[in-house]
């Protein structure tokens, strides 16, 4: 496509292919690929746990699991999915791969730190696998005291240490992203010319940096308390279990935004490209991302409305919760209006992105119900909550993750995925997801508490529907594993810019060479200069393409 493509050296994949060259690489693209392998492994570990849970709940008395096993399974599902899949999912893979490409840099600011982050992640992952095999943890991913410190007989300390180390992997990656975004942008790449994906990764990194240390300290205290019997949160020794909840949710609520902001970034890229239109209200979208990142820190108390915190603070937290919903609503409206006057193609990434909008909207709106104080008194800790956060994290984040993976697959691997299979998996995921989690809203309103391994017989219909949906969902998640792997070898070769997109990542070869660009690009245009009338576009280096 471009003149530079011809003179480029070997791609980052083929440049040198010893095992050592991968394990000691400092290339952000290779590290992204290694992260991709790691988190895919954990996605399937967590997925197996989820499948077993849903199978067990086919029968009101519980189909085949002992209560101890069931409790360990949902804990493992939560810990693995939250810390070992969702939080690193988009940032550590797509973010790692794309951030330097999108801002026109040759690598991240601290490549060795980036590699170190991957090793930290795998160390914590190994520890996680270890405690899963020696017996697991039965506290739920929330580690509430005093259950986790005094009563649980699971491997809480190993789990806490695993998450602690994992946290430092997160911090290392986030630090790298923030500094890179500040210092390594190509000439002309001003803040308001950055693609929204970069803004999203930046906002996410800020949350990671400032929330994760609090979790690390809290888990360190939990581990010490359990190990030595000190009483930081033990009511018998003067501690306050609610303080643990405050500290835990100070991290874990913003963690939801860690998961969903990058997804918003991915969706913004996909929708503009396939609608062939500039995003509606670009600056509003940037401000919304930053606003969510900041205000997302002030709402953690909405996990504690029924816990006995002061009524005044509950009211304050509820108000903050409604405020933080506003920028999310703006984003949804802006994406929708971006489709107006557009020229829409329905390739697989677009199907995932459209699915994201619908699922994220319902997830966000049911979040409002939970943020309403009186409603939360009924719905807290029921399946309504379970359904709500799965809509955000699975319907939202995982859909966007798969969308992004399909969208940039040709850039990452140099091959096309099979389009028909891509569309089929996207639709199957949407259908399976709704069938799994819509019934759970009803179960929750009927009062089925979460983390129950049995339930009363009148709730069986909805549970069976949910389990049926889960089986569809499982197939939909397995499909990409097969056809994407297949495409690595047999997929059609991709050119540099198969989607005719505007970002800098499309200016270099597919897959890109070791240091991304032979010549640092000069940026003269904002992102998303598509024209819906004829589908033409101006890429960010100012070149017009018909």
């Amino acid at each position: 496509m471009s003149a530079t493509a011809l003179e480029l050296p070997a791609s980052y994949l083929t440049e040198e292919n010893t095992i050592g060259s991968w394990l000691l690489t400092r290339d952000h693209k290779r590290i992204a690929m290694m992260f991709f392998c790691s988190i895919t492994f954990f996605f399937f570990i967590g997925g197996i746990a989820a499948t077993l849970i849903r199978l067990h709940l086919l029968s009101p008395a519980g189909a085949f699991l002992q209560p101890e096993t069931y409790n360990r399974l949902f804990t493992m599902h939560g810990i693995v999915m939250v810390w070992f899949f969702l939080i690193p999912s988009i940032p550590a893979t797509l973010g790692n791969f794309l951030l330097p490409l999108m801002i026109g840099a040759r690598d991240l600011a601290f490549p060795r730190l980036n590699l170190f982050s991957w090793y930290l992640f795998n160390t914590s992952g190994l520890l996680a696998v270890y405690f899963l095999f020696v017996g697991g943890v039965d506290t739920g991913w929330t580690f509430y005291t005093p259950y986790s410190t005094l009563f649980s007989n699971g491997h809480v300390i190993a789990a806490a240490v695993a998450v602690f180390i994992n946290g430092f992997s997160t911090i290392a990656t986030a630090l790298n992203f923030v500094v890179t975004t500040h210092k390594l942008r190509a000439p002309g790449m001003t803040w308001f010319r950055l693609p929204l994906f970069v803004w999203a990764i930046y906002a996410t990194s800020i949350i990671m940096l400032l929330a994760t240390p609090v979790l690390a300290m809290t888990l360190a205290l939990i581990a010490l308390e359990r190990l030595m019997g000190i009483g930081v949160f033990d009511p018998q020794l003067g501690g306050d279990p609610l303080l643990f909840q405050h500290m835990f949710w100070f991290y874990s609520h913003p963690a939801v935004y860690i998961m969903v902001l990058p997804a918003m970034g991915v969706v913004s890229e996909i929708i503009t490209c396939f609608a062939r239109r500039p995003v509606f209200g670009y600056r509003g979208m940037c401000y919304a991302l930053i606003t969510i990142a900041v205000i997302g820190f002030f709402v953690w108390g909405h996990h504690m409305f029924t816990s006995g915190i002061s009524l005044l603070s509950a009211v304050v937290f509820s108000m903050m919760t409604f405020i933080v919903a506003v920028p999310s609503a703006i984003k949804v409206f802006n994406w929708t209006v971006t489709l107006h006057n557009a020229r829409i193609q329905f390739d697989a990434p677009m199907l995932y992105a459209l699915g994201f909008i619908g699922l994220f909207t319902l997830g966000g709106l049911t979040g409002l119900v939970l943020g309403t104080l009186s409603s939360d008194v009924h719905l807290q800790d029921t399946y309504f909550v379970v359904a709500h956060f799965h809509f955000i994290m699975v319907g939202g984040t995982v859909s966007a993750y798969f969308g992004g993976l399909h969208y940039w697959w040709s850039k990452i691997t140099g091959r096309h995925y099979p389009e028909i299979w891509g569309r089929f998996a996207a639709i199957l995921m949407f259908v399976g997801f709704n069938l799994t989690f819509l019934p759970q809203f009803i179960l929750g309103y009927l009062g089925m508490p979460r983390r129950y391994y049995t339930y009363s017989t009148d709730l069986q219909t909805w549970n069976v529907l949910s389990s049926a949906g889960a089986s569809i969902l499982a197939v939909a998640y397995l499909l990409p594993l097969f056809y994407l792997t297949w495409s690595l070898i047999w997929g059609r070769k991709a050119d540099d810019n198969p989607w005719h997109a505007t970002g800098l990542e499309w200016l270099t070869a597919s897959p890109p060479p070791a240091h991304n660009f032979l010549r640092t690009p000069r940026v003269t245009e904002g992102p998303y200069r598509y024209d819906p009338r004829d589908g033409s576009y101006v890429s960010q280096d100012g070149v017009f393409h018909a």
Partner: protein
Amino acid sequence: MDQWVPFWPTNAALSASIVDTINIGEFALIGLILLFVTGMTLVFCVRYRRGSPAPRQPLGSSSWRLEIAWTAATLAAFFVLFVFGANAYLFLYRPPPRTDLEVYIVGKQWMWKVQHPGGQREIDALHVPVDRTVRVVLASEDVIHSFFIPSFRLKHDVVPGQFETFWFRPTRTGEYKLECSEFCGVQHAHMIGTVTVMSAADYARWLSDQGVAESLSQQGAALFRSYGCSGCHDPHATVHAPLLTGLYGRVVQLQDGRAVRADERYIRDCILTPLNQIVAGYPPVMPSFAGQMSEEDLIRIVAYIKSLSAGSSS
């Protein structure tokens, strides 16, 4: 439970009516928003698909008016929801306007132990009269539990180390599920029971059928003597200790300048951590009873101290 496939839980209390009213409104609103967003998306997807002949307007440069408009609109709508929700929450979680009956409940792995003021006890079951305001005092012996009655749309966590109180007013007789909704260990799913709402006559009959000799405050009075409390707090004692008659519900002036209302929580704190709230004008000599009294004994003694106040509800 009478539906074949249940869709909406039964409404059996005042709180359920309040929560349902707000929720129905809220579900309607979010349904509208969802319909609006998905409807627009679908219409645009069809109208502006790649091959369609629809004219594409030249792109306007200014979008901020529209953005500010819907920012303001969502903010206003959300604020209304917030106000209704907060208002109802404060009504549900604040002390009731009037109390007809008090029940004491201790959660432990994995059962609910209920003590009635008359001394009646039950496990995983709670009998209450219809159309009476019932105030519940909750305590936990081990981990955090959460007392949840779906048909009342009410729950409250029980954190060990302190009393929690809330109230409800059943409006329909029948049997309803009682659940623990905060994960509390292996048998969390079996920490369930039944709330039986009875007519006043049935309830009175049920109380007398339990065959209890001593009321809760009488049991507490015996403990008050056996733990040695009466040695100092008796009107005739030589030690200069605050008199407990009429204490419950009064405002107490503390030495450090604070003024607190003497509720169950205060009395409990005074027994377990006396040095943290020394009454103005008294020496800090009371020993702590932390670790010496079970939650149930504490409840009995608190019930006794409450009974010393004239006009106390129990």
